[in-house]
């Protein structure tokens, strides 16, 4: 793989615990990320895997600076973006795209699919006029395998898989350098899941973006990702290329995660081992 697009050093993050906030004063903070260091190589798909509470989603949001870390460095394309404010981040946003888990809440219900895809194009002046934005939006729709007529539809008229395609179209339309995919197939049926992953692999081959793919499901990661970071309770347990990670997992937790996946084949005793 080529150079690192992201170089993360000693990343710390804590968030206010609103459930335990006293009536007056500030909420206590919970530590989410405990000093993570890793790199995201350019042009590859990096899987970030962990169970609930591992901090994988927060890590993703911190990478694209929707969250601000307490300490540490996030060097993106040679520049530390860990401490930048919203104003300074704005020009970088074009290259830091995100696809969300829940396709039902990530698309504004009162905007058409066309408007949803076109608005970042206009905001970042990738397109200067409405007509140009429309053309680019239609092109993005075609790329994700949706007919152009979908531009006039509203999100609630679409199935879950179709909505997720719209989410992908919105992200790729800007031709960003980095895309964060946050559990994007976990709400889908197996057949839509397979379609969406096939689409991602096809787009990656064509557009050559860098991606971090967050998932709780190791078996999905196996096919899609070039390397995998396994997280547990805010720490990195294992960071290896995918084949090595599955064939020779170094850490017991990685093995536990892998062996907890029920393979679709009959084998007596799998449940007894639990």
């Amino acid at each position: 793989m080529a150079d690192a697009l992201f170089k993360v050093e000693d990343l710390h993050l804590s968030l206010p615990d609103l459930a335990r906030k006293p009536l007056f004063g500030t909420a206590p903070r919970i530590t989410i990320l405990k000093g993570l260091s890793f790199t995201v190589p350019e042009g590859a798909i990096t899987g970030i895997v962990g169970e609930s509470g591992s901090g994988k989603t927060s890590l993703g949001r911190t990478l694209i600076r929707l969250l601000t870390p307490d300490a540490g460095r996030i060097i993106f394309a040679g520049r530390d973006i860990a401490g930048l404010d919203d104003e300074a981040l704005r020009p970088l946003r074009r290259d830091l795209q995100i696809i969300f888990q829940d396709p039902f809440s990530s698309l504004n219900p009162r905007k058409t699919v066309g408007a949803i895809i076109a608005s970042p194009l206009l905001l970042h002046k990738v397109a200067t006029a409405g007509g140009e934005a429309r053309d680019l939006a239609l092109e993005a729709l075609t790329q994700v395998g949706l007919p152009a007529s979908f531009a006039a539809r509203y999100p609630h008229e679409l199935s879950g898989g179709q909505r997720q395609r719209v989410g992908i179209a919105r992200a790729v339309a800007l031709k960003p350098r980095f895309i964060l995919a946050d559990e994007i197939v976990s709400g889908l049926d197996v057949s839509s899941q397979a379609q969406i992953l096939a689409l991602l692999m096809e787009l990656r081959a064509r557009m050559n973006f860098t991606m971090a793919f967050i998932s709780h499901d190791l078996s999905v990661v196996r096919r899609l990702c070039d390397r995998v970071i396994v997280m547990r309770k805010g720490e990195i347990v294992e960071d290896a290329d995918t084949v090595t990670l599955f064939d020779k997992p170094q850490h017991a937790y990685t093995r536990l995660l892998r062996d907890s996946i029920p393979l679709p084949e009959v084998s007596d005793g799998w449940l007894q081992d639990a």
Partner: protein
Amino acid sequence: MAEARVIRVKAGPRLWLSGLWLTFFALAAIFAPLIVPHDPLAQDLMLGKLPPAWVAGHEPGYLLGTDSLGRDVLSRLISAARPALFVAIGAGLAACILGSVLGLIAGFFGGWTDRVISRIVDIWMAFPPVLLSILLVAFLNPSLQSVIIAIAIIDWTRFCRVVRAETMQQRRMDYVESARAMGLSSIATLAREVLPNVLPAIIVLLSLEMGIAVIVEAILSYVNLSVSTDQATWGSMIAEGRGIIYQAWWVLVFPMIALFLTVLAFSQFGEGLKERFDPVLR
């Protein structure tokens, strides 16, 4: 690209019946000077307390009878629609804009902004509203403008509370996070992404508020704290009719019916809109 489709109304009977009455009410108010059969202020003591046209002893030309000073009830009823409509729109919009803006800000930004605005709302709602409006109007001098200001100052909290809750709910949606990831500023996110999703709730509340404004104006003119006596209002007509209910019931009953139907129509219109909006919202 089409902007957000805000209204997709398939009118049910609730919606079009109330809409019909409100249109009728608005037209009567706008064209009152042209359509009144008599001057609503012209007194003729010889024609006092004439009954409506279907009761024995009536005079032709006075469809709903006259009051104790001989003024035509129908003409007064129509001309009283004017201040009612004026207050409904003025007070409704003023309360709506003030309350919605504060509600959007509190719900979207949260934190101390939300705490300050929410505390003010709590304190505000502890005052008895009618008493407060009477005090306010008395202080501001009785006039239609004072009535509008009083209603707006008291009722913005209704909008603020509902809009804040709706905004907080929308705030948690990923599409808002997505707008941030896109690099949209907070204000633009609020206006372009969140507001269209909160608007249906605002419109429904606005309709209800207009009905409330009509009632409050009637209460204030009933206690003589609204417009001067040379403009008929439903409230002042009810106040006058109360004294002579045994001799001339119609002076009391017709403005009450007009008031009742108008307020009912506003609230039903709001409910009807809510039914229409809901499947789109959720």
